[in-house]
Each structure stands twice: as structure tokens, then as C-alpha cells.
């Protein structure tokens, strides 16, 4: 039975590992996209513009309130239409096809971004206002304050929350398998169907996901230690 998991011609080990690599690639890209969305969302929520506040509120409420699967279906079935419409607006007539990877990254990234928005917003708020006043009093401009005072500390405060978001994002990539992208879940599904050994293969997938989440827990703990090395503990 273990032969099925091996790397030989009869084994599915290679496919599972390629799938795992694809899962990591989707998760990392989606997480990065999510952080960009989250930073934009957080700055919109913290801005004094009512329109931006409302837009960011709608984004986080809607995306966090509806099932992830529905968001993925929306982009899977509707994404190509939107991109084609934008392309034709710029004078390109032909059909634009988004590949499954892009759709997966954008869908999971949008979800990840909604959670990151709240994490980053909270982190920005926990930078003491006195420090910003002090920086202003020293004559720093807006961008310099952002770069030297706000962002470094926000990153430290946001790290634990972003760790949670990363775990969510990693697990959400399993849902991308409905778009037939060959990530771990999809590879497992194919292997289980072809060999009629679903229990074996889904257990193997569970072990691989567990390995990914465990390794990321360790990495985030390390990152937190590094980020907090200059902080005195009570």
C-alpha cells in the first residue's frame, strides 16, 4: 500500500509533492496580495474620508461574512468576463483568459486581505500617538514618519495576527481545488480516484497540511522572537 505513496512509476508521491509546492505557491502569493489589500484597507479605514471608510467597511464585512467557496466561484465563473470587459474598454478585442493560478491567488488573496485589514488596522492603532507627535516635532514629513516610525512598529504589532491569517490562508487554498488547479487537494483527489484508496490519500494530504501548518507556526514564533528582541518583558 505504501508503494502508492512512493516516487516510482506506480507511486503518487511525486504528484503529491508537486501539489504541495503549488499549495505553498498559491498560499504565499495570496498572503502577499492579502497584505497589500490589507494595508490599503487599513489605510482606507483609518483615513478621514467617509467614502473610503464606507468602502473598506463593505469590503471587510462582505468578504468575511460570505463563504470562501462562494468568493472562489465568483472569480472562477466571473473573473474572465470582468477582465475581458476591461481589456475591450482599452481597445483589445479578443478573449482574455485568466489561468487557474491567478484566479486562485486573487480569490484567496481577497479573503486573506479582509482579515489582514483588521489586523493591520489594530496594529497601526497600537502605535502610541505621542511617538507620531514627537516625530512631527522633530520635523519629519508624512512619508518619513510612515517609513521610520509607523511601519516598523506596525509590523511588530501585526505579526501574531498575521500569523493567524496565514494559517487561514493556507487552509483556504484547499478550496481552490474546485477550479481544477493542481494543488495538493486536487492532486489528492485525482490520486484517490485513480487508485480507489481515498482513505490513504486524504490521510496523506492531512499529514502534509499538518506539516505545513506546524512549520509555519514555528517560523512565525521565530519571527516574533526576532521582532520583539528589542522589547523589555515584564
Amino acid at each position, binding site marked *: 500500500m505504501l508503494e502508492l505513496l512512493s516516487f516510482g512509476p506506480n507511486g503518487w508521491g511525486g504528484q503529491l509533492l508537486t501539489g504541495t509546492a503549488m499549495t505553498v505557491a498559491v498560499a504565499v502569493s495570496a498572503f502577499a496580495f492579502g497584505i497589500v489589500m490589507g494595508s490599503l484597507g487599513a489605510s482606507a479605514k483609518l483615513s478621514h474620508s467617509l467614502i473610503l471608510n464606507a468602502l473598506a467597511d463593505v469590503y471587510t464585512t462582505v468578504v468575511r*461574512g460570505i*463563504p470562501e467557496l462562494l468568493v472562489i466561484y465568483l472569480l472562477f465563473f466571473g473573473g474572465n468576463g470582468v477582465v475581458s470587459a476591461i481589456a475591450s474598454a482599452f481597445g483589445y478585442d479578443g478573449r482574455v483568459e485568466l489561468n487557474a493560478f491567478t484566479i486562485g491567488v486573487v480569490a484567496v488573496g481577497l479573503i486573506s486581505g479582509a482579515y489582514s485589514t483588521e489586523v493591520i488596522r489594530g496594529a497601526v492603532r497600537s502605535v502610541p500617538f505621542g511617538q507620531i507627535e514627537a516625530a512631527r516635532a522633530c520635523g519629519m514629513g508624512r512619508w518619513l514618519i510612515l517609513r521610520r516610525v509607523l511601519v516598523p512598529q506596525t509590523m511588530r504589532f501585526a505579526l501574531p495576527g498575521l500569523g493567524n491569517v496565514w494559517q487561514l490562508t493556507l487552509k483556504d487554498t484547499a478550496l481552490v481545488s474546485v477550479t481544477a488547479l493542481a494543488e495538493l487537494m486536487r492532486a489528492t483527489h485525482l490520486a484517490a480516484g485513480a487508485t480507489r484508496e481515498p482513505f490513504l490519500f486524504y490521510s496523506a494530504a492531512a499529514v502534509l497540511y499538518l506539516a505545513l501548518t506546524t512549520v509555519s507556526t514555528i517560523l512565525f514564533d521565530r519571527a516574533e522572537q526576532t521582532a520583539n528582541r528589542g522589547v523589555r518583558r515584564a
Partner: protein
Amino acid sequence: MNWQLMWDSLPRMLGGMGLTLQLIGGSLALGAVVAFAVALLRLSGNRPVEWIAGAYVFVFRGTPLLVQIFLIYYGLGQFEFVRDSILWPVLREPMWCAILALTLNTGAYTSEVLRGAILSVPQGQIEAARACGMSRALAFRRIVLPVAVRQMLPAYGNEVILMVKASSLASTITLMEITGIARRMIAQTFAVFELFIVAGAIYLILNFVASRLIKYAEWRLTPYLRARA
């Protein structure tokens, strides 16, 4: 935007609401029982028992729900002894497989929430109860559990919302709840955005109601905070 189509799709989508609510209600009720048992086991003081309960929580929190659903629905049916057992009429049904997977999943998360809440009950209150002559069991029932349940409500509210969303994964094992119906109708009509909006709105309303119910429960259980205001 095709308003007529949106309006016409509403009755069909709402037809899936019953199944969605059954999935949510069933898994939350059973999940609460599992969570209670697992939280007690994790605080039992017996090393092997604590380790086993901890392993259960670790596995179900560390893997995607989709893997858990497929493992139960496709995986268990592969074994002869499962098909011959008295449990087969239950495990054969996708509905029960979905409820089982959701139950085990929410049970793992909720047990952690409950465990944290039990640990947060001040030691002084337990000592006072013991000093009044309550047995450990009585003190747990009368003092620790009520305080812990009240304490855990905000975090449990998040878990309820996660379950509302997680119930959509049942559509991957042929169950026609709201997401399953939405998916099928999108494939038939290609009206992606219209149907997405209708289905999304139903979930948003469900989540809104769920979070209001939790808020109400919190309000009911904290009369001492109201009286002071």
C-alpha cells in the same frame, strides 16, 4: 444587471436554506457536546488522556475542513468493516458525513475556546466555593461553568460565523444547500454576479442574525454590567 433573474432565483435559493440551517444547527449542537468533553479531558490532569485530546485538537485545527469532509465521506466508505458495521446507514449519507465533519471541526476549535474560558475563572472564586463546602463537581457546575460560558461567548460568536460559512463546503459532497444551488444555477444561466449577490446576501443575513443572537445571549448573561450603567 438582471433584476428579474435575481428575484426569480430567490425562492430556489431559499429552498436550500433548510439544509444549510440543519447543517449549522446539527453541527453546532453536537460540536458543543464534543467541545465540552474534549475541554474536560484536556484539563483532566491525566497525561495520556490530555495528550490524546490535544492531538485531536491539533489535527482538526491544522488541516483544511475540505480534507476532513473528503476523508470521512470518501475515505471511510473504502473499508469493508465500515460498510458492514451498523454505522453504515449513517456514514453512507452525505448529510451525516457533512454534519460529522463539521461537528469534529467545530468541536476542536470550540474546545480550545472553552478551555481558555475555564482556565480564566479566578482561582479565588473556586476557593470560596470550596470553602462554602461545595464538592469539586458542584463548584464546577455552579461556579466555574456559568462563568466560563459567559466568558467564552464573544469568541464562540466567531466560531458560529465560521460554521455558517463552513456549511457551504457540504456542497462539495453533493448536498444542495445554498452554495450548491447557487453553483448549479450559475452553471445553468451564467448570471454569475446576480446569483452571487443573492446567495451572498442570504449568508450575510444569516451571519448578521447569528451575531445578534450571540450579542443578545451576552446581554442576558451579564445583568450585573447593565445595572451599574
